[in-house]
């Protein structure tokens, strides 16, 4: 027999669990950020995380950006050619790349690469007592492990997105000029005429938010993992899944904030 109250109870439990998890993540993030305001600051850990975030993510972000820019040019050409609006393509490419695709695709790629690596590293440190060991060696693990990574995420992902924006536009430019037969200087002129500073700033603000979310999810799930190799594995999965969903959710919220009237 199925008691309808069971279903209600399950929804209630689920909601409570979600609220509790959100609270825990928020507290964790706030604690991590507050450590940035109080010395010492572990510059070496910050630089290591920055290099991991940005430099080693460059190839995958660059490739993703070039191909997305190229695909948008192609797709919008098939859509628009019927109405004779080819000139709009330059604008569509640059606006979709700078406002939307650059930050989101770079964010998702970095979540898969760096978020996973962070969760695995901190998770392994947790289950092998290395995080506890830090505490016995006059080092606050939140300050040493988490704070530098959060800051690195906020700084590195916008840098990556600048590169992604340029390469995305370049991808669209290549297809438009080499394949669709557009005039190169005309294409570039339309590109820069349409793009505004506000678009760039909004895109970079999204990128910084995504970088923070990626680092937060990687650190939170790694830091709180338990139960040996399996626990580290599921922490890694959770970090990537949670970061990806949050990126898409925040993308909507921020788009609403920046662009909707």
């Amino acid at each position: 027999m199925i008691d309808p109250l069971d279903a209600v109870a399950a929804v209630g439990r689920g909601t409570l669990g979600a609220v509790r998890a959100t609270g825990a993540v928020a507290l964790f993030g706030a604690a991590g950020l507050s450590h940035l305001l109080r010395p010492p600051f572990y510059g070496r850990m910050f630089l290591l995380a920055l290099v991991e975030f940005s430099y080693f993510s460059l190839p995958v972000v660059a490739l993703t950006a070039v191909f997305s820019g190229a695909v948008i040019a192609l797709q919008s050409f098939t859509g628009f050619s019927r109405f004779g609006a080819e000139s709009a393509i330059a604008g569509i490419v640059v606006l979709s790349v700078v406002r939307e695709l650059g930050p989101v695709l770079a964010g998702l790629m970095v979540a898969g690469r760096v978020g996973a690596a962070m969760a695995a590293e901190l998770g392994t440190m947790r289950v092998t007592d290395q995080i506890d060991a830090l505490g016995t060696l006059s080092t606050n693990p939140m300050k040493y492990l988490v704070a530098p990574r959060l800051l690195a995420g906020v700084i590195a992902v916008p840098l990556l997105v600048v590169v992604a924006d340029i390469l995305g536009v370049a991808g669209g430019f290549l297809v438009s000029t080499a394949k669709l037969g557009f005039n190169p200087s005309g294409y570039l002129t339309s590109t820069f005429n349409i793009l505004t500073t506000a678009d760039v700033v909004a895109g970079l603000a999204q990128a910084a938010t995504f970088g923070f979310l990626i680092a937060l999810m990687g650190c939170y799930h790694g830091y709180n993992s338990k139960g040996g190799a399996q626990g580290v594995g599921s922490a890694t999965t959770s970090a990537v899944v949670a970061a990806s969903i949050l990126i898409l959710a925040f993308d909507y919220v921020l788009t609403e904030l920046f662009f909707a009237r």
Partner: protein
Amino acid sequence: MSDPSTNDPKIRIRGLTKAFGTKTVLDGIDLDVAAGTSMVVIGGSGSGKSVLLKCILGLIEPDAGSIEIDGRDVLRLPRQEREQVNARIGMLFQAGALFDSLTVWENVAFGLLAQHKAARAEARQRAGAILAQVGLDPSVGDLSPAELSGGMQKRVGLARAIAAQPDILFFDEPTTGLDPIMGAVIDGLIVDCVKRLGSTAIAITHDMASATRIGDRAAMLFRGKLVWQGPAADLLHSGNEMVDQFTHGRRDGPIQMELRR
């Protein structure tokens, strides 16, 4: 179960209680450790020995009870004073918990660098000297922990624990997983280090040979309670049925292995 010889103990634990969910791991522990003496706590796997040490270190928050170090209840100290107390405690973790992203010498010097007791070049020298104290060649300092054998990792863990010259030392199963000869060597090093620093020590173990070598006094943990305390030399003829069964490794007796919980 209090002992008249320890009127002014370095560490005084009263009524320490900790449960994980419904499972009570520590159930009202009373323990005194006199300054400059070594206490061994014996008990079966999963009996809560590590939890006891982690409670004293503040890595796990107990549900009830008090822990006094030098007469101050550390559970109720503000965070900063608590960190100052912890800075005077060194801990050798069960699985070493060496930082695998750092070299051996950086591991050993970690606490010194964190407390700004030494600059990097000097810390490196000191690390070499400390490695020599635990019978390792200073050249080992340039290796990574993963390149070391189990016995060498234990030595490095010991070196890291004593580096800041703590007045309290904790050893979590220092000989588990080592061959008997290496176990005896590590015990010898532990006794040397504790003597040289004049530290107060708590060692937890289920290795009887090790317990009698390291400890001045001993206590046995069973089902969350200390069921016996006395001189470590009496371990093998304590007159307590449970201690006897444990120290002689008998299958039958008051202790029945719990196969479910």
